[in-house]
């Protein structure tokens, strides 16, 4: 009887397409909004994730997220190095000066000052040039998003200059650093030079980056550093989640996205539920005839569920296709780079839409179960 169920479904072309349309757009909207939301949240820790040479971040105990730093004392670096299990520890400067081009374009930029000797914390994914050239005097590496913001419409070219706090610096590399939360350029420079890009303060060190020796886990080492120094120490993952949680708790972003996601879910459930219900009600006479002929209730339930799951699957496939096309296009744009359709979102939305179509079919199932087969004679 499965083919009978499917032919009944596809026979009413308008309702069939209406159901697929409703589920496809609900899927698209849900995947779109949840992925953009997750992408934006991921961006809050982009500069943390970019550092691959160290997996422990040490900071002032009051620090809550990456953007909010309080300078550490220079001696803190030595104290961290003195903790048992630390393989190496280096300093990291983070500042937000204004960068200007010779043509007068300017933008606030995120400057990461990395350890002069080791260059730990330098971006490893380069579009052009080499991070090793940071050893040259007055040199910086800028990310491609920042480059396009400051030099709009111009080809990537090394040797261009920027001015920060009266310091003229030369671009020696263009990196593929992850997009930051705000669309600021990401500039990497040696620590000794980066500190000059802002007005000088007594203390400049924002973070200490560290790595444990073999046999010591990052989690274990963070505990040791906190115990020995009184500073806050987080693994890379912990610190990224700190940033995400900070934005979740202290901004309206989750509420705004949550409302859209809830509306997409409700609209998907109501529209597909109503259409599916109407589809069943209009076919009650046929279901009654099938009951009279001797089709069991279980078989009819199976037919309705097959119809629901079929439109759900096709609608979900179309919606996911639209979502994939959307992110394929926008993922290539500078402003939205790095925001992708995550498989977790696609799977989660798939489960949600499955529940939506099952929910939508329950009313229909009830109508068919209580249907008296004798109604076929009326």
């Amino acid at each position, binding site marked *: 009887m499965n083919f009978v169920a499917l032919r009944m479904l596809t026979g009413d072309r308008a309702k069939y397409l209406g159901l697929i349309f409703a589920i496809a757009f609900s899927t698209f909207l849900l995947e779109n909004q949840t992925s953009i939301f997750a992408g934006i949240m991921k961006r809050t820790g982009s500069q943390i994730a970019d550092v691959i040479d160290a997996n422990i971040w040490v900071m002032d105990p009051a620090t809550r997220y990456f953007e909010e730093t309080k300078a550490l004392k220079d001696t803190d670096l030595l104290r961290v190095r003195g903790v048992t299990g630390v393989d190496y520890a280096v300093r990291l400067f983070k500042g937000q000066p204004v960068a200007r081009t010779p043509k007068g374009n300017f933008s606030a930029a995120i400057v990461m000052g990395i350890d002069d000797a080791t260059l730990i914390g330098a971006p490893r994914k380069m579009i052009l040039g080499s991070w090793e050239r940071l050893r040259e005097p007055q040199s910086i590496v800028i990310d491609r998003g920042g480059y396009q913001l400051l030099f709009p419409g111009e080809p990537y070219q090394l040797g261009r200059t920027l001015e920060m706090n009266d310091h003229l610096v030369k671009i020696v590399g263009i990196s593929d650093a992850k997009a930051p939360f705000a669309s600021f350029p990401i500039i990497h420079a040696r620590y000794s030079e980066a500190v000059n890009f802002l007005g000088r303060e007594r203390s400049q060190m924002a973070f200490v980056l560290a790595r444990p020796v073999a046999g010591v886990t990052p989690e274990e080492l963070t505990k040791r550093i906190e115990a020995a120094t009184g500073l806050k120490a987080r693994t890379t993952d912990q610190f990224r989640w700190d940033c995400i949680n900070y934005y979740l708790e202290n901004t309206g972003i989750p509420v705004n996205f949550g409302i859209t996601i809830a509306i997409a879910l409700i609209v998907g459930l109501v529209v597909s539920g109503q259409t599916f219900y109407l589809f069943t009600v209009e076919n009650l006479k046929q279901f009654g005839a099938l009951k009279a002929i*001797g089709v069991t209730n279980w078989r009819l339930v199976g037919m309705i569920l097959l119809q629901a799951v079929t439109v759900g699957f096709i609608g979900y496939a179309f919606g996911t296709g639209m979502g994939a096309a959307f992110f394929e296009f926008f993922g290539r744009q500078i402003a939205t780079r790095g925001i992708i359709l995550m498989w977790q979102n696609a799977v989660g939305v798939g489960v949600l839409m499955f529940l939506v179509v099952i929910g939508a079919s329950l009313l229909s199932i009830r109508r068919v179960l209580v249907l008296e087969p004798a109604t076929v004679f009326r």
Partner: protein
Amino acid sequence: MNAQPTSQTAAVRCRSVHKHFGQGDNRIHVLRGVDFEANRGQLSFLVGPSGCGKTTLISVIAGLLDTTDGKVELFGENTEDMGAEQRILFRRRNLGFVFQQYNLLPALTAAENAAVPLLAAGVKRQEAVDRATDLLVKLGLESRARELPNKLSGGQQQRVALARALVHEPRLIVCDEPTAALDHATGEAVMELLAGSAVHPERAVIVVTHDNRVFHFADTIAHMDDGRIHRTEHRN
């Protein structure tokens, strides 16, 4: 006058069947002690004015409704003693239906519609459709077997419905006003087919109608009024 004495060939026996709908002041007494028999190898007509209880009686006979009181036997078995599932299986095996409005599935072809009882019984699709197509050929619908119902005339749709009622070779066929939606000539043709193809020594056919133009096909005519059978004619 009620039904004739029980014969050895009786396929359907109803004894003192009562059927109420509703409760209290809203209670409607539709069947008021019906005695009725339909014999194998015969076309048994059930006739009477609208609202006299004909449709309720065939619903009870077909096991689609329970009686309030009385006894219904089909081929010696009391269907009300069966569980719900058992009754559905009994119906699937032993009954065929022809409805006034045909009740064909609009998305299925004529052959697929006619094959539905076989599909419900678990016969594979191709085999079921092939058997249904063979039957449609016998009923003169060879060239229409692959058409959807909306491409068929009323008479052709009713012939498809007849094929659906016959395809699984049931022992009882129940027809509800099979000619009501058809003009006289088409109705006559459908009844000829019904009489020619459905009547079988081991099968009983009950036809509910108030179309007196087709009464001449009947072997027996039970006249019903106000929830009772008050006269039964034996034509042949």
